[in-house]
């Protein structure tokens, strides 16, 4: 058994050698061209799906930026990130409505919640929600930020002090992911929930070559994502903390001997990552629904975005999330057929698998990602 495997391994070695001997610019350009071609094709033929993809991508970007910062600065894959995202959405739901599940069919409602503020549920303009949800989101972001910092103190810091490897952190985060999901199920039950129920009308927009329909909520999601991404950019490149964070990403040991308090940087990374992912969770729940089982599924597009953009690179995560979001949504419209026979109708169930496929191709071609430096 060993011989054919060794033979195959050798063959792979040659293939890999061929790829790594190509100038970096060739592969990067090729990858970019493929994505650009796909997106141009998609924009012209599936404009509606592309627009939804951009919105999903901007939500994913908020999660992926946090994930890539944690990955780059603390050097571990946080498998609890998807579930933290969903927990953020649920905490906002809790502050908005005060509801928790009593049993499978019935809810308990607390006597007071942010939703009972005067006019808190009145829709703002064409949006479906009122200012209550916005305040709840801010509160949820704070709660999640505190929670992840607490978990860092309780779980990750002792592991760090012991000098554990990346894998120990990853297994610990997997345990936390499991616990977080279970906690959501205990408190809010397994049935999907919505912030605002009812049917919401979408507006038609004429783009010249085609018309698209878009809800006001979706424009709001995109705007929030853009503003928060810009804030993260300013934080990273215009503040001293951002400089320290980038230094730790590049070389933690060097940063430490240069007098940077790495523990403080770690804490702020959790705060930023936690707050961003909580907001992302609320936006995602607005676009889709609140569902405790969604958290783990979300990990795949989040990690795909992170790897695509290059670990530790927030601008990479943004671009990666856009590519993953658009590919996911457009994949639903793909129906390859030859001579009238469908050969590859991609079912919606494969949506999340698109992220996996993109990720594997990226790992094969350029494991350091689009924006990562070559080792």
């Amino acid at each position, binding site marked *: 058994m*060993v011989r054919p*495997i*060794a033979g*195959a*391994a050798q063959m*792979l070695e040659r293939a*890999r050698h061929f790829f*790594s001997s190509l100038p970096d610019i060739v592969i990067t350009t090729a990858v970019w061209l493929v994505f650009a071609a796909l997106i141009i094709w998609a924009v012209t033929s599936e404009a509606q799906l592309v627009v939804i993809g951009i919105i999903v991508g901007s939500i994913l970007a908020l999660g992926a930026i946090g994930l890539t910062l944690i990955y*780059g600065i603390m*050097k571990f*894959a946080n*498998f609890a990130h998807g579930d933290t995202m969903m927990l953020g959405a649920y905490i906002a739901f809790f502050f908005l409505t005060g509801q928790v599940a*009593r*049993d*499978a069919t019935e809810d308990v409602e607390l006597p007071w919640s942010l939703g009972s503020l005067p006019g808190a549920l009145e829709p703002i303009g064409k949006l479906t929600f009122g200012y209550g949800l916005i305040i709840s989101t801010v509160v949820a972001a704070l709660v999640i930020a505190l929670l992840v910092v607490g978990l860092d103190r309780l*779980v990750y810091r002792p*592991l760090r002090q*012991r000098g*554990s*490897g*990346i*894998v*120990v952190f*990853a*297994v*610990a985060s*997997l*345990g936390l*992911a*499991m*616990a977080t*999901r*279970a906690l959501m*199920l*205990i408190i809010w039950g397994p049935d999907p929930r919505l912030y605002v129920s009812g049917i919401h009308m979408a507006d038609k927009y004429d783009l010249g070559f085609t018309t698209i329909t878009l809800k006001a909520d979706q424009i709001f999601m995109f705007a929030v994502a853009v503003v928060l991404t810009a804030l993260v950019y300013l934080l990273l490149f215009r503040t001293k903390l951002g400089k320290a964070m980038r230094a730790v*990403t*590049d070389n933690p040991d060097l940063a430490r001997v240069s007098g940077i308090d790495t523990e403080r940087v770690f804490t702020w990374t959790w705060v930023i990552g936690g707050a961003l992912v909580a907001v992302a969770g609320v936006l995602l729940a607005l676009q889709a629904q609140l569902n405790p089982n969604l958290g*783990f*599924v979300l*990990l*795949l597009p989040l*990690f*795909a975005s992170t*790897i695509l953009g290059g670990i*530790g690179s927030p601008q990479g995560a943004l671009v990666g999330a856009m590519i993953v979001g658009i590919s996911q949504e457009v994949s639903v419209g793909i129906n390859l057929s030859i001579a009238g026979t469908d050969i590859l109708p991609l079912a919606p169930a*494969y949506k*999340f*698998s698109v*992220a*996996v*496929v993109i*990720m*594997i191709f990226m*790992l094969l071609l350029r*494991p*350091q990602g689009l924006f*990562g*430096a*070559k*080792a």
Partner: protein
Amino acid sequence: MKADRLLTPLSFLAITAAIIIMPAERSGWNFDSVISFLTAFATTVAIFAVITLGLNVQWGYTGVFNFGIAGFFMVGAYTAAIFTKPPAESEFVRYIGGFGDSLAFLPFLDSGQWLPFVFGTAAAALMSGALAFALSIPTLRLRADYLAITTIGIAELLRAVVLEERGLVNSARGLIGIPRPFHDFFEPDDYKFVYFGIAVLVLIIVFLALEKGIRSPWGRVLRALREDELTTAASGKNVFAFKMQGFIVGAMIMGIGGSIYAYERGSISPDTFTPFFGTFIFWAMLMVGGSGNNKGAILGAYIVWGIWTISLQLQGYDLPEFVRSRIFFIRDLLIGSLIVIVLLLRPAGLLPEERKISLFIGRDTGPRPREPTTEPEPTDKPPSG
């Protein structure tokens, strides 16, 4: 220190006491029903212990980081099922394969009663191993966590394929009526003991083969590259090939585990192979038992499945409604927290890894100086260029 040494036997005894007393009390101290409950419990433990042993080869010995056990488990179970079932006939039940009866004509000892199962298990191991081979190509050379992310993705992708492609393995409805080895030779009431014997036999074979393998030079190379890839490479070992072998052997064992799971249940559906049930509990089993120790893997399977079973049993008691309706979620919370607690308080698990592994020199079972899960210092760039 003394309390520390008592933890392993105490946790074993506590779980054992609970899984004997709870069903005994609920059945009114009926001996037969307790025995049949324990047999079912032990059969499942044996099956899951096989899969945990597979994970132990990958993670405990080779340091390969597989978060997609569900995928290998599922491939094993489905392969075994389509190998042993008769071909699909109905319009509403569609699946590929169905080779169950094609070997029955062979003249030894009513071959239809056992031969297809041997082939089914072998095919399950091969398919699972082939999947591992294909996956190792893009990821095994990169940082360990990339493999973890990719395996999660592949496991979910495979589950999506199984759910979506109706002609493949009957999608969401799953496969039912999977034949069982030697089923027609025994009374239905006695069969569970027979299958318990089969599961334990498979577990013993896998365990002995692994003990032999890990105490061989091959096993020592795996351990060496888990601890330090660079040094192993400098000693002239082909790190990539050995890692691949460890990954594939582990995946094949998971495939075998999947096949005996399919025979035992008689029906499988994609619901079983979710990340939670198909992957996490095996990690919990290995972390609790002690990664890098085959006996630990088996003990971990026993304890975690014991907790699982106790939570099922608790449903029969008069609990407050709040707890009763959430017992499964509380169990999940418990198992998730258990992983974290073990990592923090007892990183080596209940049965720590043996320091020396050799067929010739005496065994030294003292505690290891370092925690077994220590990886080489991570670098920020993947070691690819």
